[in-house]
């Protein structure tokens, strides 16, 4: 397990990265860039959950991280399919 001050710095850094990626979700130049920035935002939240699991020494946060990975994958696929065909289920 890392030291506590390292984890504090890392969590603050990860929150800054999450804020920047959320700004990119709003201000992306195209719709697909916004979808990509949303995917990056979920990656940042996933990293934050892993840091939280390191900080609290609890393995239950990893279950939440796995669920977030699954749902972000499905969300990205659904968003790109909606962008391509205009509908998700055809």
């Amino acid at each position, binding site marked *: *397990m*890392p*030291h506590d001050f*390292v*984890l504090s710095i*890392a969590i603050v*850094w*990860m929150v800054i*990265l999450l804020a*920047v*990626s959320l700004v*990119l979700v709003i201000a992306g130049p*195209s719709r*697909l*860039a916004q*979808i*990509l*920035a949303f*995917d*990056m935002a979920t*990656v*940042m939240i*996933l*990293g934050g959950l*892993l*840091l939280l*699991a*390191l900080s609290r*020494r609890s*393995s239950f946060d*990893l*279950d939440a*991280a*796995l669920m977030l*990975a*699954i749902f972000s*994958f499905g969300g*990205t*696929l659904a968003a*790109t*399919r909606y*962008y*391509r065909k205009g509908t998700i289920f055809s």
Partner: protein
Amino acid sequence: MNELISWLADLLVFGALIMLTVALYGVFWMPDIYTRLHASSKTAVFGIAPLLVALMLSGDASFISRALLIGAFILLTTPVAAHAIARAAYETDPPKRIERWTADEG
């Protein structure tokens, strides 16, 4: 030995943060959707993996099993998501000019 593992985990956490920062800077700075995908999809995997290794260094079986599961899932699904975005970009707005580059043309 325990202190050494702690410092190694510190190093892995900072490596992961640097990788994710590079990925986000690439997504912010690259001009095209394809180059943005090139910046994000590889470094996202290598940004999450050191955190999972730092979790595995604790030696607890519950951490190791879940970290392996998350690592396998990220490794499988990140290329698929990047391919879906690239396919949507290619089908709706194809690139105007694609030149094949060969070595003997200089």
